[in-house]
């Protein structure tokens, strides 16, 4: 089926027989190809990060500054005001970890949007990808590792500021929570990157979503400070289900999946239930963007 036929002159450019040579090694597996293309796309994102690290540097400096300055803002608040926390700084750590992961994941769609706008995405769309879902997978890997790195730095900074350090199981739980939240939010952001007309619109959505979701969660103040309606909103906000378990394990060495981490207006929420809810959120997010991906990536 090779296109060129000039037997007297070896065709170095078209190199007929290359495909036959490739196929001689056995039919490539779908999974093998998916891994190959996903790794290559992920590698590209990491090369970009390595050569243009300013976003990551800012993404690490900002939350540490938040922790330091915002923590100092309520330094002299009466002890015990923020539940059983020793200080507001300790109370705030969980909120900052989650908010940082959330912000990073919310921006995940931007590089994809720029690839669309600059035509780089075409390069991917004309290639025989095993599945175009590899484009999404690559972004998820990238954002999740970035969020985990940021979370690690915040945990260390919080420890230095006197918030204490959770034990190994606690750190693993934080990693899992950050992973689930970043997964869900990254999926939503990528969905937006394919649905919205351009980067201006995407940035507008990110701008509008970011801070209100922070204020309408338990990141900065406990539920008991809020009016009833805001308590309802905050307990509908997935961010709260990431914040409260982390906060709980910062305050209690002896946490378990059955520990009650939040008193929602309609009842108690346990550690395990919060994790399940985050898992459900990620699953729903990944599922709900399917039609958008299929439309653009059919």
């Amino acid at each position, binding site marked *: *089926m*090779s*296109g*060129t*036929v*000039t037997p007297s*002159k070896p*065709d*170095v*450019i*078209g*190199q*007929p027989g*290359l*495909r036959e*040579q*490739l196929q001689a*090694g056995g039919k*490539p597996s779908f999974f093998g*190809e998916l891994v*190959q*293309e996903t*790794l*290559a*796309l992920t*590698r*590209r994102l990491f*090369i*970009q990060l390595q*050569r*243009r690290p300013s976003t990551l540097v800012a993404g690490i400096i900002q939350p540490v500054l938040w922790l330091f300055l915002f923590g100092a803002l309520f330094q002299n608040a009466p002890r015990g005001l923020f539940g059983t926390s020793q200080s507001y700084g300790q109370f705030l750590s969980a909120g900052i970890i989650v908010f940082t992961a959330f912000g990073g994941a919310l921006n995940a769609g931007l590089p994809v949007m720029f690839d*669309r*706008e*600059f*035509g*780089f*995405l*075409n*390069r*991917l*769309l*004309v*290639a*025989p*990808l*095993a599945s175009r879902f590899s484009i999404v997978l690559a972004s998820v890997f990238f954002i999740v590792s970035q969020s985990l790195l940021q979370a690690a730095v915040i945990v260390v900074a919080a420890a230095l500021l006197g918030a204490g350090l959770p034990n190994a199981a606690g750190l693993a739980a934080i990693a899992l929570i950050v992973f689930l939240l970043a997964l869900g939010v990254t999926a939503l952001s990528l969905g937006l990157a*394919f649905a919205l*007309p*351009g980067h201006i619109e995407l940035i507008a959505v990110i701008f509008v979503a970011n801070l209100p979701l922070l204020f309408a969660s338990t990141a900065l103040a406990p539920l008991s400070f809020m009016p009833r309606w805001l308590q309802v909103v905050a307990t509908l906000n997935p961010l709260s289900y990431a914040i409260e378990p982390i906060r709980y394990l910062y305050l209690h060495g002896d946490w378990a999946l059955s520990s009650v981490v939040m008193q929602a207006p309609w009842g108690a929420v346990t550690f395990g239930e919060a994790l399940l809810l985050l898992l459900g959120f990620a699953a729903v997010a990944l599922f709900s963007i399917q039609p958008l991906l299929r439309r*653009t*990536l*059919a």
Partner: protein
Amino acid sequence: MAPAVLIQNLQKRYGKVEAVKDVSFQVESGEIFGLLGPNGAGKTTTLRALCTLTTPDAGRVEVSGISVVENPRIARQRLGYVAQEVAPDKVLTGRELLQLQAALYHLPGAVAKERIELVLGLLGLEEWADRRTGTYSGGLRKRLDLAAGLLHAPDVLVLDEPTVGLDIESRFVVWDFLRQLRANGTTVLITSHYLEEIDALASRVAIIDQGVVIATGTPSQLKDKVGGERITLRIREFSPIEEAQTAKHLLQSLPFVQEVIINSAQGNSLNLVVTPQNDALSTIQQSLNAAGLPMFGIAQSRPSLDDVYLAATGRTLMDAELAAVGSRDLKAERKQSMREGK
């Protein structure tokens, strides 16, 4: 054996705009096939349909006998597409971009390495390979894109306006490279709105205008079909249409004049097809004088591909180009292409 590319009665509409009304042509293995037409004629849409970036509304589109609609993955493996707008990732080096490209086409590591060296050499990019593409000139970027298109040894290399926006020197580099491909018998489908480019490189041509193929053949066949010699005549720099009509009737009565077309886009100049004749120019001048008409300028030439286009559409390619630039809704087109995931 199936042709390398088969496009039959392709149609594609974007909202109210019929980008491609009825396009049919075949590219045989080993030839450079040129798709010539002004901007907005439907060339890029045709290529986008071929390369699975857009779904045709109707018609057959096949690569080596494989339908791109039914088997897009196999078709993508067999095509090497070099888009008009170069889009390298500025942060990557040329080699890294090729490595990414190799992985997207699932070349095994050893083959990828070998092919990358090969294409870098072919396009003279060795010394640039490890620099970031952000530092490349436009010509270098285009060469990198050509290298990327060839990397997986496609059946057909598809080039959309490969020399648009390049400086003269880079254009010659690309032309040389395409001649090399031709000598090697690589199958190439190339679009262009530059006549010289198609004339110099393509073994066969389809001329496309407003979404329809208006002529197909080798460049010399097409020119012979138009036949005769050409004379371009201007009564005034900008002649009133009535005057041009009068002159047209007058000149049509001359025995050696085969055809007269009024070129409205060039100040109503007259384009004549004449049977070769020694005193053609002086005879024309005399008959105009006799009718009391002035003559601003006159020129004689062999037929070109532009005359083929002119004979079919009543305007030259360059005029169509200028008109297209004015009437095109670039914003709407951009939105449309974004919607398709550009």
